[in-house]
């Protein structure tokens, strides 16, 4: 068992009467990528910003690298790196100058050129920050958050508002941080991102964890099992299947059957074969975190399509907080 670098116990945060974080517990081990996955307003930023010593807590305890956030803020800040949500640097400074600027704020700093190379920003080294694309801005942000050679790096929604390609770029960056042995705390409302990147994750809703563990564990515990989809079934096929699995769903010409045990799939194929009917193909899908979230809360996690359009509006509104 590796070292515990973050310990959060019974964390509560209230804004006036409103409880934004409602008693959450988790630990993170050195070298892990740990994600907080949840919809807008779930309490992700509140939670990470308490860990980053940017907000005060109302109840519970948070220890970072063994230090209490309420007592050792300055020491903690020197040993962590933070990419805040809606990150921005100085528009009229170059990538390199921005890294050096923030580096100058710390007791120790890594050479800007090393970070530029590590983040694959060599071409953009002397470009003004304002001229960078969203993805490059985030990569610059990650480079800046590494400037004090931190042990833990917090990335608050690093891919929100990015196009799919830029999002993959940021994923590659997160993976490279992990390879360097950094502990990464990531927040996101994209389940796919959490699933691909995290060693472990917590699903958060209304300030509470509704699931915690590795992606596999969560899916196995809370998931609804795998499903078999038979596309374009004709009448004799569907009659045969309906006789044996009365609970099946049918969508258009497709039939979806939940696989309750390992015999289910062979039985379906046997039934189809016997019916003598026609169908296009058989497909088996694993449940996703999205399904888990849907099953646990009865609502969708994120409407990915509308996000990029809304992203800007939503963000500027939140700035007034």
């Amino acid at each position: 068992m590796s070292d515990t670098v973050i310990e959060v116990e019974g964390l509560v945060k209230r804004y006036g009467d409103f409880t934004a974080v409602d008693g959450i517990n988790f630990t993170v081990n050195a070298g892990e990528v740990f994600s907080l996955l949840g919809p807008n307003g779930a309490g992700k930023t509140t939670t990470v910003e308490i860990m980053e010593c940017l907000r005060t807590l109302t109840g519970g305890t948070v220890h970072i690298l063994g230090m209490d956030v309420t007592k050792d803020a300055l020491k903690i800040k020197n040993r962590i790196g933070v990419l805040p949500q809606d990150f921005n640097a100085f528009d009229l400074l170059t990538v390199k100058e921005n890294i050096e600027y923030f580096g100058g704020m710390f007791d120790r700093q890594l050479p800007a050129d090393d970070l530029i190379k590590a983040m694959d920003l060599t071409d953009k080294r002397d470009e003004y920050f304002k001229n960078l694309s969203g993805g490059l801005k985030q990569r610059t942000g990650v480079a800046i958050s590494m400037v004090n050679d931190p042990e833990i790096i917090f990335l608050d929604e690093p891919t929100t508002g990015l196009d799919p390609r830029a999002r993959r770029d940021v994923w590659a960056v997160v993976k490279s941080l992990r390879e360097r042995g950094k502990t990464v705390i990531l927040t996101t409302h994209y389940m796919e991102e959490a699933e691909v990147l995290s060693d472990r994750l917590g699903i958060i809703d209304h300030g509470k964890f509704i699931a915690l563990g590795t992606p596999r564990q969560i899916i196995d515990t809370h998931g609804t099992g795998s499903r078999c989809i038979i596309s374009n079934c004709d009448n004799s096929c569907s009659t045969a299947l309906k006789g044996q699995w009365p609970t099946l769903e049918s969508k258009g010409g497709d039939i979806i059957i939940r696989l309750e045990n390992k015999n289910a799939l062979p039985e379906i194929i046997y039934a189809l074969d016997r019916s003598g009917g026609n169908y296009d193909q058989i497909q088996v899908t694993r449940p996703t975190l999205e399904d888990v979230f849907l099953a646990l809360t009865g609502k969708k996690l994120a409407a990915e399509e509308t996000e990029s359009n809304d992203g800007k509006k939503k963000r500027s509104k939140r700035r007034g907080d």
Partner: protein
Amino acid sequence: MANRILVALKGEAKGFFRAKSTVFWTIAFPLLLILLFGAIFSNTGAGKVDLYVQDLSDSQTSHSFVQHIAAIDSVNLIEINKTIDLDQYIKDHSPTAVLVIPANFAQAFVPGAGLNTTTLLVRLDPTQQSASAVYSIVNGFAEQANLAIAGGTNVITTARGDITNTQFNYIDFFIPGVIALTTMTTTAFWMVSVMTRYRNNGIFKKLTTTPITRAEWLASQILWQLVVVFISVGVIIIVGMLAFNTHMTLNAVAIVTIILSSAAFSSMGMIIARFIHDEESASAAANAITFPMMFLAGIFFPASQFPSWLASVANVLPLTYVGNALRDSMVYNNMSSAVGNMLVVAVFAIILFVAGVLLSKWKTE
């Protein structure tokens, strides 16, 4: 700590010089004011020139000489009694051009008395554009007289002297006021724009993740503003010298006043930005405060010319005291009054700075 302040200051400086239009307007605004108002209100030399004459010779010769000059259309001649102490007269009446006819003037015209040279003294206020015209008029008369009486030998010469004890003209009054105004507008608008922008675009959030403190950051901004203000002040003084021949001295009292004023108005900007979060509304609010202050504080016209109710408004505005302290120290050389005004500015600066630091906070929660 000092290092962090310096890093922040350097970052701000780079960004400032790269925003070309900001640089332009910061420097150009006070210059445009000076050139515009200077051109409108300074004596352009059109119309008649007042020439004061003190005739120490008081002879027939000198009387006819004076009459010749008085006959020139563009000259309005005013005689000063020869018994009057000229320097005192200049102090009291602040003439811009004085001709002194020496006591031995008449002897130069006595034929056969040998060549008794005599010198006409022309004392001029060099800041007046009419000065050289007056000088060449007198000089022309002297040459004519030389031709007539001595065949061109220089019997009568002219010497030029300065009137130093002049009453100050508009531009002398105006330029220190513009410097005062610059310390206000430069720093207040900078602070408002930087603080609202950094809060809204998340730079403050990022800065709070580093060890820099609010006090260090504020110090870096105020220091940087002092650099900008002193660049502007330097340019204003140089342009004043070149365009209007003004002579300002940038002494210790003036420098301290400029620093205090910059601190006071930076803090004012900080307070505005604390209450109004949107960049445009915040700078509109800064405008709403600085624009009336610019007129009410006696920057364009002396507050002494205001009706009394308006003058009492001027008395509570910090900018009034900044302008007074700078005029007293840089132009009128009235140091005790300058220091008094400077102390009032210091009180404003301390109150505003403390209020600004206490009110503005970084942490969202």
